[in-house]
């Protein structure tokens, strides 16, 4: 154990400070120190994807990252997605019944917000391939895949 120190992180565009030990995981700092409990912890060993956040716009596992390493980086969590309205992906998950218990959902949304930004016209296989980094015990994935493909269509249509 080592001494806690004050860190300052940029989360969802805001600068937030916390006094944490160097070993404290980003997932725990987001949840416990910043009250951003939408980032879930499902395994703490990098497999389930529930803790996925964006670090400098790229999806990453908040359970495999120490918060202290994140100074100088921009972190985006589920709380920043959608604003007052839902994002096309959030809406599609709702319409296609892409969630049941919803525990895996924030991680899946963070993964695919980034994916759809970079891959506007994915195939079903592309989506399944990326989705294989997120475990969902409830849905059997079929409706999540359908929702991602639907969101991709919506985003393409809405693009100016």
């Amino acid at each position, binding site marked *: 154990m080592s001494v806690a120190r004050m860190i300052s992180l940029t989360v969802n565009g805001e600068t937030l400070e916390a006094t944490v030990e160097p070993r404290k995981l980003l997932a725990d700092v987001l949840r416990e120190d910043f009250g951003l*409990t939408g980032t879930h912890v499902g395994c703490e*060993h990098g497999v389930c994807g529930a803790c996925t956040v964006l670090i400098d716009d790229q999806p990453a596992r908040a359970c495999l990252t120490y918060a202290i390493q994140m100074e100088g980086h921009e972190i985006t969590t589920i709380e920043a997605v959608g604003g007052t309205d839902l994002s096309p992906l*959030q809406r599609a998950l709702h319409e296609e019944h892409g969630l*049941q218990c919803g525990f895996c959902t*924030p991680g899946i949304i963070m993964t695919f917000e980034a994916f759809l930004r970079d891959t506007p016209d994915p195939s079903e296989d592309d989506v399944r391939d990326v989705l294989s980094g997120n475990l969902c*015990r*409830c849905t059997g994935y079929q409706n999540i895949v359908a929702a991602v493909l639907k969101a991709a269509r919506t985003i393409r249509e809405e693009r100016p």
Partner: protein
Amino acid sequence: MSEMEGFHYIGKPLARKEDKRLVTGRGRFVDDIVVPGALHACFVRSPHAHARILKISTEAACDLSGVIGVFTGEDLDRWTNRLRVAPPIEGLHPTEISTLPIDKVRFHGDPVAVVVAKDRYVAEDATELVDVEYELLPAIASLENALVGNAVLVDETLPSNLVSHQSFSAGNVDRRRKEAHTVVEASFYQHRQTHVPMETRGCVAVWDAGREHLTFHTGSQVVHPLRSQLAVRLGLSESQVAVISLDVGGGFGQKIALYREELTVAALARHLSRPVRWREDRSENLMAASHARENFCRTRASVTAEGRILGLELEITEDFGAYCFYPANYMSRVVAMILTGPYRIEDYAFDVKIALTNKCGNGPMRAPMSITSWVMDGTIDAVARQLGLDPVDVRRTNMIGTEDLPYRMPTGELLEDITPAETLRSVIDAVGYDAFRNRQRALRNEGRYIGLGLCTVVESTTYGSAFYKSTGIPGSGHEAAWVRIEPSGVVNASVGLGATGQGYETAMSQAVAEGLGVDPSCIRIHIGNTDVAPYGMGSRGARGGTAGGGSLYLCAQKARGHVLRIAAHELGLNSASDLRLLAGRVERLLNGVWSATGISLADIARTAYLDPTNLPDGVAPGLDFSLTYDPPPMTYSNSSHACEVEVDIRTGMLSISRYVVSEDCGTVINPIVVRGQQQGAIAMGLSGAMLEEVVYDENGQNLSATFADYLVATACELPNFEILHNHTPNKRTPAGIKGMAEGGVMGSIASLTNAVNDALAPFGVVANRQPLSPQYLRSLLRERM
């Protein structure tokens, strides 16, 4: 007009009300609930499968800064009552366990002590400083070793590791065997699995010392039964405990029992007069929460030359693990009771043995009876193989038809309103059975091996109180609901279910909407809080729809009757018989046409609450209704599954190319939710049958405590599921609901394995063990190629 056609709100594909908070990260799962000043508990777990506890040294841990204390089985034994499982079931030995082990540990991961600290990280550090001296005992790590004559006892109060043994016989299976053209034997080994809810277990216990009251936040499928258990084990009254489950990240049967960790945390909060919380980590969840399955079945079918089954015998042995949180025969008994499922079999006998071993204790997991349909339809396939018959023909020869209903199974279970022949026909048509066989032949000539597996499931869904009574299992199958129309006319309603993702806030609002005559958007369902919900039996099996939806529907009908009586009075009518409520407005039948009366539910609510002197004589103020409902002893759904696979014979790789299911689950409250349950159940079955496996080595060391070792199917291993509907209502339940959500597990593990065996038929091998890993399939083929 059948009941199913006359609905206004039941059967509508409404998108879920609960989604918005969940897709925006604003759900409230256990670990999201902030309780200021809460201490953190962390358990010290046994590294051994079986060992005596000689000494526990806690000084070093207690000295660590931030540690509040370290507590052991002796402490907990003073603060809690032991768990005794002793229902009056013949052949079942009573068991009793302390809250934490005192004399010995019984499996790798057994909690031996608990650390409480100000910080979760410190609590975990301190567990490493707790020094436990053990004396190793031989570990019982398999069924075979558990049942040998001089086996070491897992539970030293029992005469042997055989904790439960029942047998049964109807008709005369011995005679049928002698009369038979052939006796076909088959065996089935289902491996150990675990539930893997994505949210692990956890809890926050808040003891209010002034009020002497415990608030217990946890993810539970059964908040009221859990409250009863907590109260009994803590020596409190049920008025001193509230259980609250807001959002629950999956349960699948793992979140029913009161386990030792949660009870320990509650006892610590009371002892310390401080809030205490616990978040289980994934390796604890995989190793020590609850396991399931691991049973071995053998059947013997006495058949005619045409494949008609004259008699059937079943032997089940189940590896139950070390501790009984349920009566040990709880799961296997149901398998034995409903084995014959959709088939006409009169002469039937079973023998069910349950053994204790040094593994994590078993509990019901989504489809506790999951092996049933694999054993039955796998036996049918074995009959077809041995007699050289077509597996579809053997199914048809034995299947219960409409003309046979109601049909009393040899175990006494009554089947009514099921349609197995219809669902089977519908999947066979959908897959194009003859065309498949042609394709299969052609591909075999190219050295490719595809297979088609079929399975017809009769799923026991809703267990009424009569079922509990007849099986000696403590508990009841009834459910409770209340419906309150508030002064503004909006509706609050509640039921004793526990949501873990089934969309109750939506589907249950449709059940209320239908019974009352109000749009579901005006109805809010409140569940998961024992202070709010009526005492119900929670969510287990597939009882949500029939018991939960049924009781809300009936309660809402009761409310509607009352509302219309007031409306009739306002309209100056003697009777409400020509009135109805629809979309919150009272309508009157005039010359065969429903016409507006100008009276709304809000008008009536205003009168009932704020102007009660205008109510009819004898009608009390307010609009507050409650009701309990006890379903029939058992309701059944049915489904037929067809799975197409290809096996790469060089690598043993198995891939699923097509999956079709046709289901009859009665009246569907919300088709979106039901489809999601079908997909989820099939996925869980396939994942279990292909990939998942709890592995213990011969010393009882658990080798599968991470997601790198315990493999759960990802989006790449599962196909899309084609779902066909064959729903017909149940005549004896409210609105004709039958219930569903577990049959998909039963049908998928069976149809998948049957498909693999169909693919491998040219090699003369039979896969009779799961998981169907490449290594296992290769091991079968290696000798034959």
